[in-house]
Every structure is written in C-alpha cells, then in structure tokens.
C-alpha cells in the first residue's frame, strides 16, 4: 500500500533527557523517523526537551519544540501546529506515556489527531501487566504466574501463595525502576513498598521468579498487511534475574536449535498480532527453562527500544526508519533494504558474525550504591562489538568499555582463593563474567560454574578457550602462529603485551613485520549472499597464513578524515559528545571530505550507517585506530584524525596515535596536555596576568595536608587526569582532607593529587569559543551557572545569556579567554570555566576541545557551532564560515538543567559536589530567565508547588542567606517548617517557623512528615560530615516521594523566585525555527 495521503502533518514525541533505561538510542530512532518521514513529504513537528540531540537540530523537522514533554505542553503545541497525526513509538516510555495521557484525556480526539504507529488499545494491552498476561494465556503462551496488587496486604497474600523468591515489577515505570527480586520476607515488603510508590498507578505485579532461566529477545517488525519479520534474535548471556539492559547479550541467539528458535519466532509474531501492534517494531522477551525448554513470555514493548537500536546496529537493518515508514502506510515489500539496495526490506537479516553488547556501569560515582544487578536497570551505557567468533567478539567488547579492561582481565577481588571466587560467583555483579574467567583460571570446571551461575555451558566453554590460551601464550611467546591465534580469539595488543611482558609498540612492530593485521568485513544484512553498497565495517583476524587474506574495506582514493567517537555512555561522557561527532561529520561532508567514523556505542546517531561515509564499529583503542588508519591510507589521503569531539575517550589515546605517526587535526595534543598540566597551565596564566584559585599538587597524603594549610581551607582536592570530576571533593578541614586524599590517590593514574583553593559561594561561568588558525575568535556562548562554583559544571543548571553578570565582567571574561586561546594556539573549540567572587574573576579550568555545553549553546543561538569548529579545524577561516549565518542578539533566555539517576541507586546521597553525577540534561526556552528556568524544572520532573509547606534546614555558614528566601516564601503564603536550629534562627528574624524533629530526635520527625505528604518543598544545605549523615534520609525520602528538593542556597533562591514568577507569568511556546 502506498503512503497515507489523509495525513499531512505529523507530531513526533521525543524521549527527553538521558536517564538510566532511556539513553541516546531514542535520538537515533527519533532522528531516523524525522528524516524518513520528511523525505516522504510530510510536515514534521517535533517535541523534545533534550537539547543534546541530533533530532532537535532545526533541519530535521519543520517545527522543533524544545519544551517539557508533558500533557500540557504537548497540547499547547497541538493547538499551535494542528498536526493530523501523532507518532508515539519513537521516544521510549516517555513518549508512550504522554501519548496515552493525551489519549485518555481525550485531547487527541478534541483536536482531531490520530495516533499512528501504535494504537492506544495495543499500548494499554502491552503495558498493563495483568491484561498482558491474560492476553498471552488466550493465545496459549505461558507467563510466570503472578498477581497484580495495589496494597501491601494483598502483596503478603500473594507471597504466601507463590513463595519466595518473587519478582516485583511496578507498572508503567522505566527500566524496571523500583522493582527487584525478593529472596526474603524483609526484602519482599521493602520492595513492594518501593514498587507501589514508584508506579504512577500504585500498582505492582508480583511474579514467580524464573531466575536462572535462559533469556531471549526477538525484534519483530510488522506492517499493515500483517507481514511480520524477525529482524534479530538476542540471547542474554546473563540468565534471567538481571535486567536485560544490564545483561551481557549476544546476537544472534546462539544456544537454540532451529525447532526451539522457530517456536520463539512464531510466538513473538503471535504476541504482536494479539496485542494489536499493527505497524512498526516491537520486542518480545522470553525465558526458557534450560532443563526442559519450557517457554515463558516475560514482556513486550510496542515501540522501538534500546534493544531495537542494538538489533539495528547488529544487523544493519534500520528498524526505526522502517517502522516510521510503516506507520504512514507502506508495507515491507514496498521498502528497500538500504544496505544492499537490491533486496526489499521484507526479509529477515541473517548475519555471519557474533555481536556482543556489554553494559557500562558507573557505581564508582555513587558511594554507597549496591552494585549487585537485579531486575531494575543500573547501567548508564553500553558498548557493542563485532567479531567472527564469540571469543573475538566478547574480548573486543571488554576492550570497548572504557574501564581500562584489555580483555578477560582479572576481576577486582579481595583475594583469588577458591572460597572467595565461589562466593563471588553467586553474586550477580557487573564483573561476574570476569569472575568466571578467574574461576576457570584457578581450575574450577565448566559444570561447577554453570551450576552456580546458570551461564549456559557453551558460553563457558568458549570463555575457557580464551582463558586456557593465556598459558599457551606465556609458554610459546612471540611466535607468528601464536600471535595470530591470540588475535583470532580476540586478544588485544595490550593484553598480549602484558602477558608477554613487552611494550605494546614492540608487539605492534612484530605484528607489522609478520603481516599480522586485521581484515575488515562488511555488516551486510545477508551473510554475503548479495553484494552490499554500504561500507559498515568491523575488524577480524579470520584469516591465516596459508590462505587468501580477504578484506572488504576497499578504501576510496578520496581525501578523508577519521572522526573518533565517544564510546559507551557514562556519566561525564554522554550524548553531547556524540552530537559533536555527528556535526563534525556533517561539516566535513559539506566540504567534500570523506568522513570515517570509529565508535563502539550502538545507541548513537554517529554509528548510524548513513551518518558518516564509512563506519568502523570498533573499540576506541589506539590499536584499532592505527589499524584502520593504515588500511585507509593504503588508498587516498588521510588528512588526519579528529580527537576533539568525542570527549575524554579519544583524548586518552591521542598521544599514542600521534606517536604512531598519525596527524591529529586542529588544536595540538601538546596544547590539550598543557591545559591538563596544572603547573604549566598556572605558569601560562601567571604570564598572562590571569587570576586562578591558589593551587598546588602533592604525591602523598601528608604533603597534601601541608599544601592545604598553605592555601587555606576549604580546599578542592582531586586526582589528576580523570573524567567528570571523579573522586573530586571539597574538604573543609584536615580530617575531611585526609580521607579524601586517600581516595584520590587510589584512582589517580599518576599518583598526583591536585589541591585548589575553594571559592565558597562564588558564581560559576562557562564559556565556549571557537578560534581559527589565524587567531580569529568567535564567542559562541557565555553561560552563568545557577548553583555556585564547586558543584560540577555538568551537574549545575545554567543560563545563556547570564542573568546576573554585568556586561563589563562579561567583556573581561572574553578578553581573558581569548588571551588563553591565543597563547595555547587553539584551533577549534575551547571551553573555559571561571568563577566570580566578590567581583573578582578566576579561571578554574580550560578544555581546548568540544565540551558538554556545545549542543546547548548551539540550540540557544541557532548556530551549529560544532560544525563550524570542525571546518575551522580543517583549515577554513572563521569569518568566511560565519558569513553564512545570521548571528542575532538573543531574544530569549535558555536554561539547561541536569537530570540525576539517584532513584536507581538505593543508599546513595543526593548532595551535589565537584564529582559529576547527572546522566542527562533538559533545556527550557522562554522570554524571561525565570520562565525558562521553570520550564527546565518541569522538563526534569521537578514540579514546583504553588502553596503548602516548605521544610528548611540550613548549615550555620549559610543561615544568613536563607532569610531573604524564607521571607519570600512567607509572602507567597507558604508555611515554614524547620529543624530546631534553623527554626530558632528564622523565628528570631521574625519569620514564623514551626519546629519539627530531626530524625535522630525521634517520631514524629521530618521524614514522617514527608511520607505523610505534609511537605511540598525541601531546602536543605549541609556542610559537616555529621550533618550530611543526619539529613541523608530527608533527601532520600524527598526523592522517593517526588518532593522537589534543593541542596544549595543558590538553587533554592532561584526556585523560590520561580514560584513567585509562576503566579503571574504565562509561558510562551515557540519553535526553534521561529525563534532564530
């Protein structure tokens, strides 16, 4: 059937900020949907609150709204735009939930908007756990026995019937938030309580546990003629019990016979038909009992998902793009397979390699977090790897994770005696597969390990093959055949060289001399049956000395640039960098330079096969970059490598690849180093007469204490060379400092601790500039942080333009920043962080590369600054590029706010500090600073109250600052509640405040009030360790009960101003296209 002509304008709903369970895969799917539907001639209206997305680039839609994804805002946009249809399946759970709200409130009906891609009945049936189970039973499929309950009493009854262990799944939450497996009574009650709270409908499902069963996922696509295809089957290496987002998975499924596989295939198609997913992609999850093959359906998602992004990258089949076209009426046989361009989209991809996905965790960022894996997702990103064997694939996967792993390395264990290992094997931790490796090393058998872990024996045999080879390698040493074999089973150069105790470049030289280099193979959707046109490549050592060395890379004779991506998402290294990489690609393409992308993150737009001219899906290690470079330069001219767009990942290897003779384009690695080197950097600032906080470095704890005394407390301490402020802390006294320095020394790679004067209550400023080779400078944006200096810049809210910094100070800042850029000869982007205290300016940090704020600045100004920077880096003049753009005075305020994953980590404190903790960001745009700020708060789910009670608890140093805030709250008719000290202070200043007990003072205390819904806003600052401990439960409870809370004076002040502002102001809603 050709496309629908009864619709003309389509509203696409994005996924909002990056959170655990919903990462940049939805930018990938949303961008595909926008592009493909626009190509079909539809008018596209887009809403997404996340500025760091490619989909919100103004070119991708006709009207782009960066607004909170709530029913109210979407309705306003519907009123403005009057779309004919709404596509809810591209923006994850967020889009699905808001679309259902719009439907249930008859808003779609009122405005005559049709839902396409999925219908409300189907969504309801798939999302409501009880209805889903009933539906499955009707088509003869079993589900684990379960009951849906709404109260604790009902839960207990269910427990008595089904018996522990039981799985608790809250309805309508993302990534299993609030759920888990209960093994004992206490844990059960706790999980049920949490789950009931986490569910927007206060509903949980209690389910018989099938922990230990094998887990499979099927990615299904269906069209309106009922053609169904399975794009990919995915097998979880981790058995049931670990959230699939946290599981190591492989594609295709490996341990099923054809008969079993076809049963899953039939069942998943049956599920789609029953649920009523008429068009588009869905995934269906199954559990299989390894003893007898009994199959249970676990769940299905009636939309594109994280696994559909993975399946797309794993097979080359663009699920989101096809799903979007099916949603407007096409059928599969009418669409073309993009990769081969000779076969239709109505086929099932078949592959001749093994894909591994390994999740990336950041437990080190969240002190106190329980790092055991459960049914609630905790990973923040993932890496995907491709190899011709499982062995090659999984070792490349470990290599891609950016943990510093070189392959099947030793796990971090207290000791490696048998008992420790046996007990570690029982724990579903993020390093469990490495523990399995260790268990094999000390001689445990596959059967023993299988019994404890339930990992399928086949995977264990393959891991054994890898582990056993360590000894052979040690024994036989540097021999041609041995090294090739090691490479075949996925050993990285760094792994081999550490086993052989030689330098990595010695090994590289040996390999080059022996002609041991990888070949590259195509991801072609068809296992080589047809010729394919798309250069989507991976490396493998699937060749040997006696036979033809077959390589499919076929480099072109063009001028080309290699762009290094950002690797797996983690905190401090998110979608912003992928956005920058994609823009670098666009810029170079415009200049007619061939673009070559290297990346290993399957969630991204940069790894879409039609982003760069050529895509290598590979770990971002020096080894793989050098091999790809050598291959590419065998034909044509490689102008160099761009390392400045992918964040810390490519920078880490910049020196090494430069030493291997590869040109780094733009700002030199020398300059990048200079900015990181405190001593040399201080010298430069001194020379330029630019102020910075007093600082020093130390190598030992005692030295640290000495230096801190010289500088004066409070001080900021951190290890050098780490990402996202890892282990960075503020110490107010000697005791503090001592414990922090120990920790810092532990994570520092070179045993250096940096100590800085901490500027208390200073204003922080971020500046992004672009400089070209002639020294022309363009100030892209000056941002004022809302939280004070000392909170990691990635965690602060900020405003562009600044809302309280004078023009004069801004000019001074520009002058300083320009001086620095000139001095270190930046070519491309540079980000500078500064502090203002008592009208004095200090430079805190300089990063001569793309920063996290680049997409936000680009969206605020309507100028693609990453693109401009990339052009400058390959030699263009800034002025001539800027001529193409209208650079207007800003008519709006743009506020960025950060989004945190605290709800995923039990036991973790919510206090912000110099170590970054946020996973994502949202943007609010409006005419006044406060309106923009309020939008940013709504967009991250922080709904400010307009009346009620505010709880205040302030540390002594900050008490003087709370008066003004408290007074304003009183004027706004709020009741105030405070702990004794704060209450007395406020009452003595004539601000009437009621007293409530601290938790340690006994019931009824403040946490009781929070739970009883008696508090609508929390303002809580802390400084000493003991006050932090005391108030921990206040912050945690506020989080669990969705009560807005502020932990800084600066944040609280703006929030209260915003509450006042809300009483009188209306929002203005405009698309990016009409703003700029």
């Amino acid at each position, binding site marked *: 059937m050709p496309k629908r002509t009864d619709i003309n304008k389509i509203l696409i709903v994005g996924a909002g900020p990056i959170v655990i369970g919903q990462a940049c895969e939805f930018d990938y799917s949303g961008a595909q949907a926008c592009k493909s539907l626009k190509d079909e001639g539809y008018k596209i209206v887009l809403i997404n609150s996340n500025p760091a997305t490619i989909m919100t680039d103004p070119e991708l839609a006709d009207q782009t709204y960066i607004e909170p994804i709530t029913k109210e805002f979407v309705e306003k946009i519907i009123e403005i735009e009057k779309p004919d249809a709404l596509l809810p399946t591209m923006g994850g759970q967020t889009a699905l939930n808001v679309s259902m709200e719009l439907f249930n409130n008859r808003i779609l009906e009122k405005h005559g908007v049709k839902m396409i891609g999925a219908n409300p009945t189907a969504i309801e049936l798939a999302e409501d756990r009880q209805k889903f189970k009933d539906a499955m039973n009707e088509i003869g499929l079993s589900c684990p026995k379960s009951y849906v309950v709404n109260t604790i009493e009902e839960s207990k009854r269910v427990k008595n019937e089904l018996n522990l262990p039981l799985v608790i799944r809250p309805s309508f939450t993302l990534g299993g938030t609030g759920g888990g497996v209960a093994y004992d009574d206490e844990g059960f009650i706790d999980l049920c309580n949490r789950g009931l709270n986490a569910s927007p409908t206060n509903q949980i499902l209690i389910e018989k546990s099938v922990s230990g069963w094998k887990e499979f996922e099927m990615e299904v696509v269906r069209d309106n003629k009922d053609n169904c295809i399975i794009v990919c089957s995915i097998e979880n290496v981790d058995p049931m019990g670990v959230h699939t987002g946290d599981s190591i998975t492989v594609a295709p499924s490996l341990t099923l016979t054809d008969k079993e596989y076809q049963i899953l295939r039939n069942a998943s198609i049956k599920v789609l038909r029953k649920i009523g997913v008429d068009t588009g992609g869905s995934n269906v999850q199954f559990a299989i009992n390894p003893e007898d093959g009994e199959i249970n359906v676990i769940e299905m998602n009636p939309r594109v998902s994280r696994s559909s992004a993975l399946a797309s990258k794993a097979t080359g089949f663009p699920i989101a793009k096809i799903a979007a076209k099916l949603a407007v009426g096409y059928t599969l*046989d009418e669409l073309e397979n993009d990769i081969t361009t000779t076969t239709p989209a109505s086929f099932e991809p078949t592959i001749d390699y093994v894909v591994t996905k390994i999740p990336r965790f950041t437990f080190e960022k969240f002190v106190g977090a329980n790092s055991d894996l459960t049914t609630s997702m905790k990973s923040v990103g993932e890496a995907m790897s491709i190899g011709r064997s499982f062995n090659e694939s999984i070792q490349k996967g470990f290599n891609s994770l950016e943990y510093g792993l070189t392959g099947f390395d030793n796990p971090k264990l207290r000791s490696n005696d048998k008992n420790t290992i046996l007990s570690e094997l029982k724990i579903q931790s993020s390093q469990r597969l490495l523990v399995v490796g260790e268990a094999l090393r000390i001689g445990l058998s596959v059967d023993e390990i299988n019994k404890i872990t339930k990992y399928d024996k086949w995977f264990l045999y393959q891991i054994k093959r890898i582990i056993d080879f360590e000894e052979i390698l040690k024994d036989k040493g540097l021999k041609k055949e041995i090294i090739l074999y090691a490479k075949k089973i996925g050993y990285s150069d760094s792994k081999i060289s550490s086993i052989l105790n030689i330098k990595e470049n010695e090994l590289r030289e040996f390999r080059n001399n022996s002609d041991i280099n990888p070949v590259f193979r195509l991801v072609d959707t068809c296992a080589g049956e047809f010729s394919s046109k798309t250069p989507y490549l991976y490396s493998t050592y699937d060749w040997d000395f006696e036979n033809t060395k077959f390589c499919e890379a076929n480099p072109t004779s063009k001028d080309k640039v290699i762009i290094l991506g950002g690797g797996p998402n983690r905190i401090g290294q998110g979608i912003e960098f992928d956005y920058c990489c994609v823009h670098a690609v666009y810029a170079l393409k415009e200049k007619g330079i061939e673009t070559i992308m290297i990346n290993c993150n399957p969630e991204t737009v940069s790894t879409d096969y039609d982003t760069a001219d050529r895509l290598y899906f590979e770990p971002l290690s020096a080894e793989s970059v050098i091999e790809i470079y050598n291959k590419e330069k065998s034909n044509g001219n490689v102008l160099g490598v761009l390392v400045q767009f992918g964040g810390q990942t490519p920078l880490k290897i910049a020196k090494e690849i430069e030493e291997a003779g590869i040109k780094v384009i733009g700002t030199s690695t020398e300059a990048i180093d200079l900015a990181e080197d405190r001593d040399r950097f201080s010298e430069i600032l001194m020379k330029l007469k630019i102020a910075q906080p007093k600082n020093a470095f130390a190598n030992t704890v005692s030295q640290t204490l000495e230096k801190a005394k010289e500088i004066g407390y409070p001080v900021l301490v951190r290890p050098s060379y780490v990402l996202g402020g890892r282990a960075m802390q503020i110490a107010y006294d000697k005791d503090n400092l001592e414990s922090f320095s120990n920790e810092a020394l532990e994570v520092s790679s070179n045993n250096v601790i940096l100590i800085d004067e901490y500027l208390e209550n200073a204003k922080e400023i971020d500046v992004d500039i672009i400089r070209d080779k002639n020294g022309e400078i363009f100030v892209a944006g000056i941002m004022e942080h809302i939280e004070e200096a000392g909170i990691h810049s990635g965690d602060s809210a900020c405003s562009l333009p600044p809302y309280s910094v004078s023009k004069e100070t801004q000019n001074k800042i520009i002058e300083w920043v320009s001086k620095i850029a000139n001095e270190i000869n930046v070519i491309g982007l540079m980000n500078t962080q500064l502090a203002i205290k008592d009208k004095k300016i200090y430079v805190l940090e300089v990063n001569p590369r793309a920063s996290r704020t680049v997409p936000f600045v680009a969206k605020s100004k309507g100028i693609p600054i990453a693109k401009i920077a990339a052009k400058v880096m390959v030699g263009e003049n800034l002025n001539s590029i800027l001529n193409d753009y209208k650079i207007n005075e800003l008519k709006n305020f743009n506020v960025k706010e950060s989004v945190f994953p605290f709800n995923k980590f039990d036991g973790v404190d919510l206090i912000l500090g110099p170590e970054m903790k946020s996973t994502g960001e949202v943007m609010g745009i409006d005419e006044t600073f406060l309106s923009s700020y309020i939008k940013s708060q709504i967009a991250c789910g922080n709904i400010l109250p307009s009346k009620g009670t505010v709880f205040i608890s302030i540390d002594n140093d900050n008490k003087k600052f709370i008066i003004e805030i408290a007074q304003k709250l009183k004027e706004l008719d709020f009741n105030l509640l405070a702990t004794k000290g704060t209450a007395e202070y406020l009452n003595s200043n004539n601000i009437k405040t009621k007293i409530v007990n601290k938790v340690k003072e006994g019931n009824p205390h403040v946490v009781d009030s929070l739970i009883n819904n008696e508090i609508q806003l929390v303002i809580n600052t802390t400084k000493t360790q003991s006050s932090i401990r005391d108030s921990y439960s206040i912050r945690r409870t506020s989080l669990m009960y969705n009560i807005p809370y502020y932990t800084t004076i600066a944040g609280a002040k703006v929030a209260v101003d915003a509450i006042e502002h809300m009483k009188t102001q209306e929002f203005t809603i405009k698309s990016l296209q009409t703003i700029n």
Partner: protein
Amino acid sequence: MEVLKKEPHIHNKTAALVLENGEILWGYGLGEKKAAVGELCFNTSQTGYQEALSDPSYTKQIITFTFPHIGIVGTNQEDQESKKIYADGCVVNQPLSEYSNWRAENDLNSYFLKNKIPCIFGIDTRYLTKKLSAEGAKKAAIIHFGEDENKIEKIKTQINEWKGLQNLDLAGIVSTEQNYNWKKGIWKSHKSIKSQFKYNVTCLDFGIKNNILRNLNEFNLNPTVLNLFSSYEEIIETNPSGIFLSNGPGDPYATGSKIVDVIKKLIDDNIPIFGICLGHQILGLALNAKTKKMFQGHRGSNHPVKNLETGIVEITSQNHGFEVDRDSFGIDIIETHVSLFDGTNEGLRHKHLPVFSVQYHPEASPGPHDSHYLFEEFYKLIEQNAKKN
C-alpha cells in the same frame, strides 16, 4: 572428542577444500578421513545445521555454513530430516567445542563420523560465500587427510571428471526402496495424532524430508511414501485422495524425464497434487514448462516470497539450484509466488485442475513456519475434490 585437544589448532592443517579452478583452501579435518567431491554451495541459516545436513536435497553437495559457529547445540534424533546425512560434506568456520542444549544427545563431529562424511573447519567461509555468490556454484572437494596426504592432484582430476549436478538424476538414488506409511506429528504439537486419518496422500519420494510427513499428519492426512519410479497402477493402488511430489536433489529434467508421463496421467485423473521444491519443478515439467539451472541457487532461511494471490510476504526456507522458467508457462498455469530477492518463480497452480506447487520449503525445518498454511490448502483441495466426486 577428537577435535577438542587442549592444544588449539595452530599448526598442521589436516584438511583441504579444493575448488574446480584449482584453488586450495587449507583447514582442519572433521569427520571421516576421506575425500568427497560435490557441488559447493552455501547456506545462510543461523540455525538448523542438522536438519540441513540430513536433507536429501543436499545429495552430492558440500554445504558452506555462513554462520561461523556450527555445532553449538549438538545433534539429536528428533531433528533428523531423514535417516542419515545426505550432504557430501560441509565447510565450517570456527572449531567445534562441546555442545550445550537440553535436547542434545551427541556432538556434531561424532555425527559426521557416524555418517562417514568428511568435513573441514578453519576456512574463511565469508570469502568462500562472496566467491560463490559472485561466480556461481562450483564443483569442489573436501579432503580430510588420512595416511596419504598426496591426494590433491588425484582429487583435482576427480573434480574435473565429475560433470556436476546438471543432467544428474539423484532423486532416483535417494528415493525409498520400500514403501512406508508415516504417523508422527510435528515437534511439540499440541495435537494428538489421530489414528483415523481422513484422506490418504501418496508421496512420491524424490528425497522427502520428515517434516513434510509430520506436517501432512498435522492436517489429518495419511501419507504413504512410494519410490519415485512407482508405476501409475502402483500409485492408484494406494487409493490416494491426493498426491504429493517431494523435494529432492539433482537436475529436475534428468529425474522428471523418466516420470512425467505418470504424473501427467495423475493430473488427468483430477487427483489433487501438491509439489515442493524438486516436486514443484517436476510438476512444472509435467505441465509442459521448462526448468533451468540457476546462476546462484537459493539456500537459506530468510528468503522473502510474495504470494501474488494474497499480497502477503512469507519468509521461507529455501534450498534449490534449479528453477522453473516462468516464460515457459502455458496459458493454464498461474504463477502464484515469486521471490522478492531475485524475482524468480516460487510457485504455480493450474487454472482449472487441482494441482499446485511451490519452489520453497513450507515444511521449514530449518526455517520459519510462515508457509505451513499450504498444507492446509492441500487438505482443503483434497476435501473439495472428494466432495465433488
């Protein structure tokens, strides 16, 4: 298990794959130490190696599995599609390791040994596949060296002397000698196979797969399998309500020329006939169409076929190197199915008579079950026909 010595396969190639152009690919031997000559083809299925190996249609062929890990789930009795391995040998990329599956009974290498076929692993199967898809199917030989390692020249001669599959009647060789009746439904079927079937179906065995018989049972048909050279009278003696023409190996013309007269008579008798694969080609020949060798055959489990009468796309299992030439169709023949990969004919039916056939494998095994409905259609056709008479 012999292949699982602790020392990995690093030195000493123990087998070779010799192509008709003289190219030699060195690898490691599996299965019987001997040589085998056949047509080299590739199969892109990710599952179902045992079903493929035991499919009689692969007689005189060497299968290159494009998926690198073969043997993961071992082998078992239930997954046999016939009584033995019919393929001449197979080419595998990765070494075999221990298997793992709750239904597994034995490992793949033992299965090769038991069936006395030579196989080879450590071959760059992607290279081979790209070569076959660009240059077309090739004659080749696997040599798994025994004592005599100097067989290569001899084998090259053997390859040259062998004339290939064209004009080869292999169905005649693999067809059953003894007629038999089949009673066993499809795997994990919820249906209990009734002792009383409604209609008899007589299957002419060109190399029939067990799953065809299981599917006929599933639709309450009572199959009796006959040697393909059975006479018209012998066939009629079985009192068939329907005739089934099975899949099988070799050149359809070579086999067909010997039996089309019998088939023509059955068509004239107005008996419902259903053909699959070689059966489709032979039915085509009996309806005066022509068959020809394809440049590159269809072998895999992901082939999209469009049903021209419903517009629905089926994902099908395929295994054929010959096709029915649609340009030779008479006016009474309707093309019912077409390959979306290359546009070749995948199905036909007669305008007035109750006969139809498909080129692909609706019985799957290995492969998707999208086309099981054809067995039901066959049943309905038989039923309608029975009512008419």
